[in-house]
């Protein structure tokens, strides 16, 4: 078996409940390579945040293991930066101090000037400056808070970045600009990213691969969809790529129809999901290319 940078093996998380235990997800097997940007999509409540908490080391899995860089994840670490669903900035610290807080914990030996300079570099990278960085989170807009939170996660230069619906609470315009920012940063740093999102277009714009999760309880990672569109991608142009709509249709079809059909516990009748198996790999863009390619050929034959 190929060893990936991040290896998830037979992961399951169950919560004890009043009437028996609640299996949020089970049988999760996947890998993420270094420098890869992976998104996970699924309906609300299917267990995406639960998976991420396990990957972050904030929560322990009921079954299975997570390996990063060959060693087992057994607790939170500065090697994994987390951007939480609700920003989670410390409200009594100014924006810049929220970042220096992280930088100091990462490099305790640095002096004040080094910490400051490093923090400002990352604040500028997300486009925050001009005095706004001196304000407390409560005095910042939602978009600015999100930028601070992203700067904080990037500033510790983690090996893996975990993003939980980072743009969920933003309006479309702000979301677009921060997405562009994120694309730029990722192109520059080749950061390995695991990101949760609800937004199909956002996933296609950012991801190399999209994991599809069935509805919970007993949620599974049913498919791994390759986003076969070339980099660098731009929000305005990507929709003209012939591969775009096949991917988008595939994702929407999954969310609307198949996430429900495939939901429920694994039974012997669903052999595709045998324990330990990786999710089915699909590449809608390539399939579409081949089909149109085939169609042209047969048209030529007919002539």
């Amino acid at each position, binding site marked *: 078996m190929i060893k990936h940078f991040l290896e998830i093996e037979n992961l399951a998380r169950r919560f004890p409940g009043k009437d028996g235990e609640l299996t949020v997800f089970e049988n999760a097997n996947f890998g993420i390579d270094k420098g890869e940007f992976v998104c996970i999509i699924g309906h609300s409540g299917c267990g995406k945040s639960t998976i991420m908490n396990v990957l972050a080391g904030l929560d322990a899995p009921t079954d299975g293991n997570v390996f990063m860089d060959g060693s087992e994840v057994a*607790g939170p670490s500065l090697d994994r930066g987390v951007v939480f669903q*609700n920003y*989670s900035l*410390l409200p009594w610290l100014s924006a810049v101090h929220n970042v220096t807080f992280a930088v100091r*914990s*990462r490099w305790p030996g640095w002096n004040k000037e080094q910490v400051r300079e490093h923090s400002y570099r990352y604040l500028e990278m997300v486009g925050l400056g001009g005095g706004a960085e001196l304000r407390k989170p409560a005095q910042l807009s939602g978009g600015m808070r999100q930028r601070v939170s992203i700067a904080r996660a990037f500033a510790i230069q983690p090996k893996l970045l975990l993003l939980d619906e980072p743009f969920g609470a933003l309006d479309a315009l702000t979301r677009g600009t921060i997405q562009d920012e994120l694309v730029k940063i990722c192109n520059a740093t080749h950061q390995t990213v695991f990101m949760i999102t609800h937004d199909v277009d956002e996933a296609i714009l950012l991801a190399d691969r999209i994991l599809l999760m069935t509805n919970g309880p007993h949620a599974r990672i049913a498919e791994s969809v390759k986003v076969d569109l070339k980099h660098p991608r731009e929000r305005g142009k990507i929709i003209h790529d012939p591969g775009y709509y096949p991917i988008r249709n595939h994702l929407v079809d999954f969310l609307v129809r198949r996430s429900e059909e495939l939901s429920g516990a694994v039974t012997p009748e669903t052999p595709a999901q045998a324990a330990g198996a990786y999710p089915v790999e699909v590449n809608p863009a390539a399939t579409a290319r081949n089909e149109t390619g085939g169609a042209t050929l047969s048209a030529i034959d007919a002539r």
Partner: protein
Amino acid sequence: MLQSLNARAMLVSIGFLVLVLGVWEFANPAPDASKPLTEYEILMGGADQEARVPPPSAVIIRAFEELSNPFYDAGPNDKGIGIQLAYSIYRVLTGFMLAALLAIPVGFLIGMSPLMYKALNPFIQVLRPISPLAWMPLALFIIKDSETSSIFVIFICSIWPMLINTAFGVAGVRRDWVNVARTHELSPLRTALTVILPAAAPTVLTGMRISIGIAWLVIVAAEMLVGGTGIGYYVWNEWNNLDLTSVIFSILMIGVVGMLLDLALSAATRLVQYEE
């Protein structure tokens, strides 16, 4: 609009003050010397000035006298109001600080550890409702010093609000902020100092503010009980001297000092307050 609201509120306050003082001044005139003495007054040796509640004018005159020389010391039963207040404030602050030194760390422990919460809760529930003055005889017996005993009583009564508020504040720190500390691999000590403490500080300071208010209530009673020095003793002494003007004056001073202590802590609370 706000400016004018404040101005109007001040006008109404002054209006009330003048009204109350006016009623007090004129509704209770000095006894008429031409009236025959009642049987009670004969028994009491005549109707003198002391037998009535003194008018505000007399209290204001007394306040001027006392406050123009607050720190004179003419023997154990005749000290300036400043000295007496200073004794009381010293006892309150000493007892309060000692209580804070114990209550805040223990509150932290209880707030962070459900085990310690369950283990210590029964003791707290039994000890908390005890009137602090009920400890006085025991304290006097064990400590054998009235000064230290009153400090001990302040200590006991200041502990509970601080302890309970600290525990409550610490236990209520948002899970997300603790997770931020965890993902940054902070040591338990640094987590406590850089995340939990600032997060819980407003609640802790609210507890301190309640404590100092209670301590100031209790010190007057404690000093009345043990005597010697302090504003509580002063009130009681002036009552024994049948000097009601001084009693009213010192009651007002107790109120003013209590207000100042509260203002100081509310200013401190505002310093650590944060907006989510």
